[in-house]
């Protein structure tokens, strides 16, 4: 007589997914449960470091491809997947969500949001991923909506309008869940928006608080804008923040002021553009801020991921730090309890400032429109997720080295929904071409005369370079480090590779044929370590050969 099989979540015979609630406790301690990947950056500290060590420097060359998921969209694949109990939650451009089986890559369900044709994201119809809490997924869309989906069925639970896409507001980031709220921010810094970060009720989608990244009249910092320039001053949010539960502070990087390249139209420091803000996640109240680039001339967004790390600097230190390799070319070490500047030093060639003063403010040395400014408009680094390994105690950055631009400011009038750039890039750059084709091309036109990409390992306490892995082309890929003393990353050449995290030695590489636009992740499936990365328009999943 046949018996009905009792499905248990612990069964290893089959790939059985018993979806569990993702609780706040699990999110708080995600680093202690490395089998899952629960937030955009892996954990609230955003270190993109995993304690998984089945794959290590001795066996990484034995990694084999387990499966490939090919996206339907040919637009940039910038999403970092989430993994919960062997179910992979993934987005593809512009705003389609998949639940995939980690064993086969097959799809359980798919949800497609068709963005309004009013959506006008500046730099591609991209989405960087999801947030998860309880049994719900959260997606921010390029037409500035926030959606909640049932994680088991993909059914839409609620959807709200966060801002007006026709005015250039968009959302490309993965949301961040903290307690009973889901937090997002708006992109659109090239359209004269007024940026903000906002929190919404997990269950109903009702807005709980909103923090404008440009202070309004009467608020502290408003005086850093001249007359009406604050109304269209940009200061967008387009990457996910971090969170320290022990301090109850959430940290977000803020984008460039607008117009991007004409600071004379907005005299003043333009707070809180190009800053990191520390907010109380319950109220949205600003607790502290630190500005990297006051009155920015160069589109040096400070939207990089705030990486939180704990170590002892000296007897007087709090032991709680924030590591930040900024698009402006400087590495910063901040005390994340109060935003105090502790250390700053260039990690790439910099000539727009000769250094930083004792408060961290740049000592500016403008080159003007006749000379090349380093770093160039894309920065010394950009939105590519860095990593900190507590094992090696090193901070890793995807950098663009020896790359500059000529900036030409131009007056511009704000027109709703139109680009509000206020300038142009000049050229030719002496001895080099201007920025060649930005995307991956069959024939690589990027040469060392324009600059080169590199993975840099920095001592987080001093900012000094410990090792450097140079690449011919530049890279857009984030970085993953693991307790196997490994560093995984990719580049625009279609290479996905593993380095010795301590020494930078190349250990393994794959030619995947498409540009890397996101950060690799790692997780457990049937107690075996998997490494996943999106290159080109596909997600590749690797594991050791058994």
């Amino acid at each position: 007589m046949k018996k009905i099989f009792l499905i248990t979540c612990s069964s290893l015979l089959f790939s059985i997914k018993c979806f569990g609630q993702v609780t706040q406790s699990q999110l708080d301690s995600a680093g202690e449960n490395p089998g899952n990947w629960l937030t955009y950056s892996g954990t609230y500290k955003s270190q993109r470091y995993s304690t998984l060590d089945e794959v290590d420097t001795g066996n990484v060359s034995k990694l084999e491809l387990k499966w490939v998921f090919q996206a339907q969209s040919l637009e940039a694949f910038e999403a970092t997947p989430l993994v919960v109990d062997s179910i992979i939650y993934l987005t593809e451009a512009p705003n389609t969500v998949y639940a995939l089986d980690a064993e086969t890559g097959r799809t359980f369900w798919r949800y497609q949001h068709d963005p309004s044709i009013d959506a006008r994201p500046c730099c591609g119809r991209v989405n960087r991923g999801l947030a998860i809490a309880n049994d719900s997924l959260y997606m921010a869309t390029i037409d500035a909506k926030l959606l909640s989906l049932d994680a088991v069925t993909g059914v839409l639970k609620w959807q709200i309008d966060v801002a007006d896409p026709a005015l250039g507001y968009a959302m490309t980031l993965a949301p961040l869940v903290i307690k009973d709220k889901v937090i997002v921010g708006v992109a659109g810094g090239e359209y004269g928006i007024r940026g903000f970060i906002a929190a919404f009720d997990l269950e109903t989608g009702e807005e709980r608080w909103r923090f404008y990244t440009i202070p309004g009249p009467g608020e502290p910092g408003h005086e850093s804008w001249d007359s009406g320039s604050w109304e269209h001053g940009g200061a967008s949010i387009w990457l996910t923040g971090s969170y320290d539960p022990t301090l109850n502070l959430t940290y977000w990087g803020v984008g460039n002021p607008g117009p991007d390249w004409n600071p004379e139209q907005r005299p003043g420091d333009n707070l809180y553009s190009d800053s990191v803000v520390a907010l109380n996640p319950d109220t949205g109240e600003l607790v502290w801020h630190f500005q990297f680039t006051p009155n920015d001339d160069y589109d040096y967004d400070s939207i990089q991921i705030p990486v939180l790390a704990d170590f002892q600097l000296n007897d007087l230190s709090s032991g709680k730090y924030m590591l930040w390799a900024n698009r402006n070319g400087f590495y910063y070490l901040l005390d994340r309890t109060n935003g105090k500047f502790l250390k700053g030093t260039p990690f790439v060639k910099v000539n727009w400032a000769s250094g930083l003063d004792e408060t961290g403010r740049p000592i500016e040395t403008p080159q003007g429109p006749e000379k090349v400014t380093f770093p160039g408009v894309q920065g010394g680094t950009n939105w590519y997720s860095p990593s900190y390994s507590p094992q090696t105690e090193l901070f890793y950055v995807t950098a663009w080295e020896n790359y500059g631009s000529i900036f030409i400011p131009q007056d511009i009038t704000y027109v709703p929904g139109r680009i509000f750039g206020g300038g142009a890039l000049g050229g030719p750059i002496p001895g080099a071409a201007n920025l060649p084709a930005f995307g991956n091309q069959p024939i690589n036109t990027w040469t060392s005369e324009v600059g080169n990409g590199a993975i840099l390992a920095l001592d987080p306490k001093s900012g000094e370079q410990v090792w450097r892995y140079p690449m011919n082309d530049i890279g857009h890929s984030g970085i993953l480090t693991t307790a196997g003393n490994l560093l995984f990353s990719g580049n625009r050449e279609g290479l996905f590779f593993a380095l010795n995290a301590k020494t930078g030695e190349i250990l393994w590489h794959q030619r995947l044929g498409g540009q890397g636009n996101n950060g690799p992740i790692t997780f457990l499936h049937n107690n075996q370590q998997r490494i996943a990365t999106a290159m080109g328009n596909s997600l590749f999943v690797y594991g050791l050969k058994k």
Partner: protein
Amino acid sequence: MLKINNALSAIGSKWMIFFFKALLAFLPIQLSAQQHAGQYDVADIAYGAQLFAGRCVVCHGADGDLMPRANLRSGTFRNASSDRDLMRVIRDGIEGTAMASTGYADAELTALVAYVRNITNFNGSGEVLGDPSTGKELFNGKGECLSCHNTGLGGPKYAPHLGKIGITRTAAALRRAMQDSSEGMLPINRELVLETNSGELIRGRRLNEDTYSVQLITREGNLLSLDKTQLLSIEINKTSSMPNYGTLLSEQEHADLLAYLLSLKGPVFEGLTP
């Protein structure tokens, strides 16, 4: 109140009679509830349906849902939001896609837009529709539909969610499913009975399948992926567990339930806009 109007039988072509009859059988209850009520002329909708059946149907399908990335029943369009946008797309096509320029005249474009805007309300099958509010009571009560299905949040996850069934299925298809649930069920929704190599049985609704694996959802709401090499047999249960409402409900109750199902077009979230 939902009787087919025979007064139209004396006018127009055979095509027009069919579409007008079908349309008038449905419009009195449905157009009153939809967003663009009264915005489109009944004659335009019917003429648009005729034009659609003559050309657009080749790619978009008889129900407008044959192309997943251009599901005309969804009510949202990737390259158009206003009626003027839709007219432009239909007339000029979309470069780089299979949507070629059609060159329809303005009157034809008006008719096609009217039909596309009302495609989920247009009852081309001639099914008799009842009162959706009575149908909702049947759905939640006598029909016991909520014991397996769900139309909103919470509740069972095993059977297909019906929150947008009015967009994804036609009146005729829903009628077939209610009257003969086994025959009317989409094959992908049929229950699988899997016997493992060790003789155990697993039952679930199929979500996906390839040569070597199959993906299911169980009655408990768990997602499963199974390796076929570890299965002794896979049986497709062609007998639906859903009752055959053809004998359980009266003709009027059928019409009411059908009207309710067709009214399910997904949630509206306008109230939450800050």
